[in-house]
């Protein structure tokens, strides 16, 4: 597959949750902060709190990775294409929304460090 910068509505998985996730990640806790002590007239506004942090290494994360390894094992011993199981398909790549779009790499393996790489030929 050839990577390409796709037009705005790129992701193709529909829905707006991807958009919102992008928005939250892009803007939250960013931007200039006006010091309330300096600027008399700053109004306290009630903000809904949204915790966008998803990366917390913990047991759950580790178990999930172990599970991915486990699946990898099973499928390779059954001679299936690993991509069927582990690779997030296009649907899991969040939608790029109104933004530039997405570049999608995929398909063949990159040639960096080909050492001892598992065979992934189709049977």
């Amino acid at each position, binding site marked *: 597959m050839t990577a390409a910068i796709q037009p705005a509505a790129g992701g193709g998985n529909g829905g707006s949750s991807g958009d919102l996730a992008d928005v939250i990640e*892009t803007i939250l806790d960013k931007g200039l902060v006006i010091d309330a002590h300096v600027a008399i007239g700053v109004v306290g506004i*009630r903000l809904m709190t949204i915790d966008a942090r998803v990366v917390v290494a913990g047991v759950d994360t580790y178990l999930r990775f172990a599970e991915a390894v486990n699946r990898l094992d099973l499928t390779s011993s059954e001679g299936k294409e690993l991509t069927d199981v582990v690779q997030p398909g296009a649907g899991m790549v969040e939608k790029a929304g109104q933004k530039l779009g*997405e570049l999608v790499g995929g398909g063949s393996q990159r040639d960096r460090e080909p050492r001892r790489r598992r065979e992934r030929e189709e049977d």
Partner: protein
Amino acid sequence: MGTPESGYLVYGVVPGDVESTGDGRGVGDAAVTTVAHGRVGALVSEVTLDRPLGTPDDLMAYQRLLDSTATAVPVLPMRFGTAMADIDAVEAVLAEQHDQFAELLEQFDGQAEFVVRARYAMDSVLPEILDGNEEAGALRNQIREQPEELTGNARVRLGEIVYQAIEAERQRDTQRLVEALGDTVTACRELPPSHDEDAAHLAVMVRTAQRDEFEDALRNLADDEWQGWATVRVLGPLAPYDFVQATGNGN
């Protein structure tokens, strides 16, 4: 001072000669206007203070306004939710930080932020990690051969190894991305990973005139070296959310 019922949301700072066309819409579909002071101005809209702010629509309206502004003029985003009681207060802030704002606006003129996020193709990355780690191989065998209830610790340890290996790969690939972009970008800021499987998460500033070069550099990396290794997404052009901390306020 009693609790005011309405105030002004401040979206961002723009050059003082920017005039609102009147059709810009902000949070709650309110009309966005400009408040100018000297060489700087602020984008504001009226807001009622009787409801909490931060619904998906609020967030998207805020970002949409700033990003669309950023395609035309330099803009310094204010943190979402910055609100002031009246126009005088907004002008006071512009006056107080006039020179800082003006300098930053000049610096960002003709540039926009882009966010590059790369995500690993785990079917390529996992085998490489396993092949390169003896302990992981042993754990994998143990997990396969023993009943599940006996392998809890082994599974946690295996996952931890994978997690740490991905962190190391991420560091290398982030560096690789920065190299690949080279001088097609004027500034780079590494962002915290947004996902366990992130290969890189990087905010960059790009000159409008260099946007094609920037996209070509990215495409080359994604198409060639990272083909099958990581997928690359780009968000932008954006207002410079990740490059305005320089004024020293807040964190």
